[in-house]
């Protein structure tokens, strides 16, 4: 019951008036970010990160994580009312959410979405509360080889689980690692791939990459789709909320299934987007009236929203305990921790218990605050979406440029943002996944140093990765994940021979 004591202590850290204020502020900013095209959880937090440098660390992380919850909530509003997914993980929500809104049941759809999000996040936080300390304790025994094996597993899982072609996943991942290697090598002091450009000395900052890839890239994609906001207006009355809650109880099976899918996909770096699609598919397969899906079935809103939030929240578990983020947004939060001088990983739980448990407590509180805020403020957000893109678009570009500049006060970064933006657009169009690129850029240095340390320990022999059952198990699992995409082809081949 040590966890409960720690958690109670965490509540006492998080439940101060300024921190509650930061929570409401974070949730509100987050919903705004989630609602606006071109601003998402990852780049929204990346843009706001420099503003938190002067804040108290615990308050800052509370605000930033609340922005994350807010963005998760916000994505549902645009999907249901406007059929425009504000975030990739709310694409599956449009399938049934928008038809419901067209039938005049927008209130019910939104209530279902917000409540399911809350449920998904709540169970994921429970998982973090009780599992994270155990994982952290276990990970304390990890040496360099084990750390590298975990990182290897993370990246191989991308290849095995992503829906994009495996060669493209591998290529962007290697591109991310290569960009992380640019600049001065911290061990030997050698300059790598700088070619005499002083701007390249410090390497590529992943915050700039995130703002460009996700922000500018998304703006270009939005332009391509040609925005015509023809949304449904929405008000949520109390009796509709209560009615919907009663209806939701019937879908407990779908909820549990979606929570499980979401938590699994969040902890392993599958991410919220595939989780939402998987949960939607499972719900439809398990339903009695399959035909009603896609035409406005509340269950079709419950499943993806629950899974997306469970995944988005549980992505913080490996981030906190191992220093390996489960999603791009978690990666940005990790970057924030590093900038504040906090090294995420098993030691964080021992050295900064106030910070860790304050953050975990704020996840409970933030989600409750978030649910209340979204349920009461939906009409305003719907109104914001009626502002034409000819205003929103350039304003978001200005915000992205400011965000990119403030990271290092460097004009070069603003130019790089544009370059990343163009590549973000191209990569999206050609089905190159962006998440592995960002994670490789964030984790590149860490992966390299754990690899080098392992090599030093073993005097250059790769056998260290098979030296004990734990590291051997992790490595074998990595290779299974890496080779997973070959399995269908192999099956096909074998069947062809019979």
């Amino acid at each position, binding site marked *: 019951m040590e966890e409960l004591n720690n958690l109670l202590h965490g509540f006492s850290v998080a439940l101060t008036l300024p921190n509650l204020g930061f929570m409401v502020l974070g949730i509100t900013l987050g919903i705004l970010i989630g609602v606006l095209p071109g601003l998402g959880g990852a780049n929204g937090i990346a843009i706001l990160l420099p503003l938190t440098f002067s804040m108290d660390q615990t308050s800052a992380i509370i605000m930033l994580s609340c922005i994350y919850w807010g963005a998760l909530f916000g994505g549902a509003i645009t999907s249901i009312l406007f059929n425009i997914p504000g975030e990739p993980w709310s694409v599956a929500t449009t399938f049934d959410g928008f038809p419901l809104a067209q039938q005049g049941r927008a209130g019910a759809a939104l209530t279902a979405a917000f409540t399911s999000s809350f449920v998904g996040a709540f169970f994921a936080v429970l998982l973090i509360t009780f599992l994270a300390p155990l994982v952290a304790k276990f990970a304390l025994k990890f040496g360099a080889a084990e750390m590298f094996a975990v990182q290897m597993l993370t990246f191989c899982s991308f290849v095995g689980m992503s829906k994009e072609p495996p060669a493209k996943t591998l290529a962007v991942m290697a591109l991310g690692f290569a960009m992380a290697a640019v600049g001065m090598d911290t061990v030997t002091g*050698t300059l790598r791939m700088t070619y005499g450009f002083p701007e390249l000395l410090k390497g590529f900052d992943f915050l700039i990459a995130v703002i460009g890839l996700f922000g500018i890239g998304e703006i270009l994609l939005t332009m391509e789709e040609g925005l015509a906001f023809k949304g449904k207006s929405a008000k949520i009355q109390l009796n509709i909320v209560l009615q919907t809650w009663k209806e939701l109880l019937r879908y407990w099976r779908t909820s549990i299934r979606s929570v499980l899918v979401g938590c699994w996909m969040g902890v392993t770096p599958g991410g919220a987007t595939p989780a939402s699609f998987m949960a939607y598919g499972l719900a439809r397969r398990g339903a009695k009236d399959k035909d009603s899906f896609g035409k406005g079935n509340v269950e079709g809103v419950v499943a993806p929203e629950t899974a997306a939030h469970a995944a988005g929240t549980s992505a913080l578990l490996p981030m906190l305990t191992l220093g390996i983020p489960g999603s791009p947004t978690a990666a940005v939060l990790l970057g924030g921790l590093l900038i504040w001088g906090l090294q995420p990983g098993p030691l964080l739980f021992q050295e900064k218990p106030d910070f860790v448990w304050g953050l975990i407590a704020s996840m409970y509180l933030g989600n409750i605050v978030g649910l209340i805020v979204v349920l009461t403020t939906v009409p305003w957000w719907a109104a914001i979406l009626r502002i034409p893109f000819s205003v929103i678009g350039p304003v978001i570009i*200005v915000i992205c440029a400011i965000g990119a500049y403030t990271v290092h006060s460097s004009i070069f970064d*603003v130019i790089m943002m544009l370059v990343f933006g163009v590549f973000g657009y191209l990569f999206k169009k050609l089905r190159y996944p962006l998440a592995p690129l960002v994670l490789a850029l964030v984790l590149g240095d860490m992966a390299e140093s754990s690899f080098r340390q392992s090599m030093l320990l073993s005097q250059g022999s790769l056998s260290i990765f098979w030296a004990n059952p734990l590291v051997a198990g992790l490595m074998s699992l990595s290779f299974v994940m890496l080779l997973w995409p070959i399995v269908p082809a192999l099956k096909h081949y074998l069947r062809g021979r019979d």
Partner: protein
Amino acid sequence: MERSEDAAEAGLSNRWPEILVALFLLAVGVIVVSDSMRIGTGWEEGEGPQAGYFPFYIGCILLVSSGWILIGALARISKPQPQFASWVELKSVMQMLVPLSIYIVAVVYLGLYVSSFVLIAYFMKVHGKFGVIGTVLTSVGVPLAAFMLFERWFLVPLPKGPIEQMLGL
């Protein structure tokens, strides 16, 4: 009416974008591998792995995977391809990309505030067909709000150009 619909469907196929991006990745792979070889990919006696040790393998992975994508794309080159985007869609993308690029160049020389004012005013006037008052209020208001928020409250200076210098800011 029919003609414009046809025009909406015609567009750029995936063929060349796919090949060009693969070639770009391949080129990056060549840079990574060659630079790693320059700084040494081996084992320094008494020191451990050299600086190019890890990036070398990364570059190899990049070469193999992008080569694989390129071969796949070349093998399909004469077959029908999915559409990258229609010409109409590409035109709208360019309507954003061109002003955006000019904006970034302008930020370098004119600073952020003036460039942002011009960018927002341009979009509102040309694409949004807003009236003069609304356009001026928004395009002046946003940079002004950014100025108050960053320079005054958070004390984060943003890039400024000759015009701000003239105003003595």
